[in-house]
């Protein structure tokens, strides 16, 4: 029973060499790394260790290359744009013309969309005359659709760069606008200060020109006092500008 359970376990056992990842081995590996004068992220050459050393298991394998399978689908380790031929589909457009973003590619795309419509029309006609033959046209429409989607997807990196350009331009404008606004604010403050100092100058001159006279009545004296306070204020402003 126990053996059965083990055999039908949902997940495979961990790789057998996990037992080698002990504290001693790890510190031995660190020591070895220092011995070779390697940084913490540099790969350790396998040959530098004795062949039968358990430390061999602690060195990660080199990065994989080639293809791998997952759930019956084949994937390639290197990113690559699979072309239609690779997927077993007839290519209907001229591949040699230019890069995926070229104007010619768009002409091809428009041609394909016209063909799509025409093929549908032919499919309709065929269905009314000899419905058994629908397979031919259906296949043609399918190939056209694959080609269109392929062309569209090839355009994607181009659009991504274009979008990035646009976003950067927007950002640039924003930053420049902010700079401009800040400069404007600075300019306004400076203007206000210049005006204030001009008024202060004026008040000081007036003060010098009319020395206070003694025979004025109370009201005038009050006014004079207020004026003096005022002048004092302006003087302070002038001093601090």
């Amino acid at each position, binding site marked *: 029973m126990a053996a059965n359970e083990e055999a039908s376990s949902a997940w495979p056992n961990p790789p057998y060499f996990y037992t080698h990842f002990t504290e001693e081995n790890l510190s031995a590996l660190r020591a070895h790394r220092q011995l070779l004068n390697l940084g913490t992220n540099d790969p350790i050459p396998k040959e530098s260790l004795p062949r039968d050393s358990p430390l061999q298991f602690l060195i990660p394998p080199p990065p994989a290359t080639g293809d791998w399978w997952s759930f019956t689908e084949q994937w390639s380790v290197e990113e690559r744009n699979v072309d239609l031929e690779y997927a077993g589909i007839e290519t209907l457009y001229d591949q040699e013309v230019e*890069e995926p*973003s*070229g*104007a010619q590619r*768009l002409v091809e*795309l*428009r041609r394909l*969309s016209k063909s*799509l*419509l025409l093929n*549908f029309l032919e*499919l*309709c006609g065929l*269905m009314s005359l000899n419905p058994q033959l629908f397979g031919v046209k259906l296949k043609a*429409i399918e190939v056209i*659709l694959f080609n*269109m*989607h392929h062309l*569209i997807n090839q*355009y*994607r990196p*181009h*659009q991504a*760069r*274009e*979008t*990035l*350009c*646009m976003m*950067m*331009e927007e*950002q*640039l404008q924003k*930053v*420049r606008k*902010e*700079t*401009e606004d*800040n*400069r404007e*604010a*600075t300019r306004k*403050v*400076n203007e*206000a*200060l210049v005006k*204030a100092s001009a008024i202060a100058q004026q008040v000081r001159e007036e003060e010098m020109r009319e020395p206070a006279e003694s025979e004025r009545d109370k009201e005038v004296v009050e006014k004079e006092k207020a004026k003096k*306070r005022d002048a*004092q*204020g302006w003087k*302070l*402003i002038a*001093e*601090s*500008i």
Partner: protein
Amino acid sequence: MTDRLTQLQDAVDQLTTQFFSALRYVGNKHESAPVGNEDRVPDDKHHPDKPAVFEAALSELARDIIVKSKQIEVLITSLPGIGVSEEEQKNRLLNLEQQLKEAEAERLKAVEEKELARERLESVIVNLRRI
């Protein structure tokens, strides 16, 4: 709003769906035709539309397909950056990056200037309050 390419892709998919539904409609709702001089055989499972309705639906389906097809054309011609090469784009990006850096430096300088102006104004006001 999604980007142009996704719109285009969706439009192509929608067009295909329209193909399907148009054929399906014609197949399901057409009036049967008598063979030779025989009478029409009634079929309980078949419910054809009235000729007028059928004709109207046909032209509507056809029009919709044409409209969708036109929409695809428009989307194709309005794809961003037609005829701009990858090299040009990369140069433009580098250029923009440089400009952005300069603009950012300018911005920081302007903020500093503003801060100085604010401090001057503040000191004037603080002095005024001493009266």
